[in-house]
């Protein structure tokens, strides 16, 4: 519960600072480049998520936790 409140606080603090950040639409040339997308290669990202889900006790973060395998 405490973690939830802390997180909500962090998100609110982050959002309140957001209005002073950012770019104008005509400044987006670099951000629009394919290599600047948060997930550049979705297939590689899905592959890695599945490998590490199978071999470690943690999963997800970037998106849903994955799953759907017996993974011995």
């Amino acid at each position, binding site marked *: 519960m405490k973690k939830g409140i802390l997180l909500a606080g962090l998100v609110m603090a982050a959002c309140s600072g957001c209005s002073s950040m950012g770019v104008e639409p005509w400044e987006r040339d*670099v951000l629009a480049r394919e*290599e600047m997308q948060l997930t550049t290669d979705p*297939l590689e990202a899905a592959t890695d998520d599945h490998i590490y889900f199978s071999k470690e006790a943690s999963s*997800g973060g970037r998106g849903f*936790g994955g799953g759907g395998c017996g993974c*011995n």
Partner: protein
Amino acid sequence: MTSSKDRSVTATLAAATCTLLGTIPAPVDAQEEPKWDFNTSVLYYGEDGSRVQDASLKALIRRMFVDDRYLTLGVTVDTLTGATPSGAIRQDVAQTFTRPSGNGSYVVPAGEHPLDDTFKDTRVALSANWTQPMGRAGLFDVGTSFSKEYDYTHLGVNAKYAHDFNKRNTTLSGGISFSKDSLDPVGGSPQPLSEMLDVGDISNRSGSEDKDIIDVVVGITQVINPKLIVQANYSLSQSDGYLNNPYKVLSVVDPITGDTLARTPGIEGGPSGIFLFENRPDTRTQHSIYTQAKYYMGGKVLDVSYRYMTDDWEIDSHTVDLRYRWPLGSEKYLEPHLRFYTQSEAEFYRLSLPDPNDPDGAPLPAYASSDYRLGNFDAITAGLKYGWTTRNGNEMSVRLEWYRQTGTIPADQIIGNQANRDNYPDLNAVIAQFSYRFDL
């Protein structure tokens, strides 16, 4: 690569120009014709010491429709072979185990880490997602997933929504997914903490088991400046049901020597020692915080992410992932990749168990597993990717990575002779992937 987005921008510009000139624009359907985007790959994942090998074919196929709507279909076929640690400890003598099917036995030579070599499977995974804008600033995605292997079936549904604010500099997103998985273990699911029995004796086995998983993810993405974008996500994952690995066992050991207690196999053969099937709690709640930043530095792109995970099995983990994309001219790039991972062991992780039949011995814990993935370990991945654009504008890449896990058994779990042995089944693996992306 041109996309329908580019085309719709072209159409919008054309329409705007026409409006300015006071003419009627031509129909825009030609500019927004549907198209297919294929993202395909061949993957080899191989662990050393005759452990797991996976040859995998993967494809993400995107079909574009008008108005920035699209359908994404995912297909994966995995062919898995190799051996996997059974959970039993090394011994100075050869050990015999009954196979999971109960139909035979296998021998592990003296001094070697017990691996169950019966692992062989084909896994098929399918997914479908529909994505479309909602209003001027929203994006909605709904999907379903299915996977099937010999002893495991997964069925899932998911939905996500993202909304842009602040001149599209801030995006808030939220998503939820439900999974319903069922396990039908080879030979039946063993009764938790029951003994591995002789060949042919399946009296401690029952049928299939189920588990349900709910995942919730909320996140914020923020453009900081023209060269920096950051993201932060919180995710909650709740698993309920059968969370055991039905093939994993623990060795029952002498409280002084730490050696596995001997057992006399039956006429048909059977285990040479006493091994109990593992038992985990039937619920698990995981919390994760994930942060990522991408920074553009004169053509080069630095991609850094960090994830913290904690759960009610008392596992904490930290993951740092670094990628650096280095262009070689305008058509090629190199991308070194480093990943560091560390986790603490689950509260019920045990290297071995006391004898439940010893009246003077320590009591058997309610939950116990020696699955190396629930242990205390560090892992490192180092890799390099090379990507290029082909003459006809398609994209190809190859990557080669090494993954290494090194574990530590908590000192208070080491008994007698166990101190002389390397008890953690360290893992070395190679990942090789070739990807090809093309449009039709």
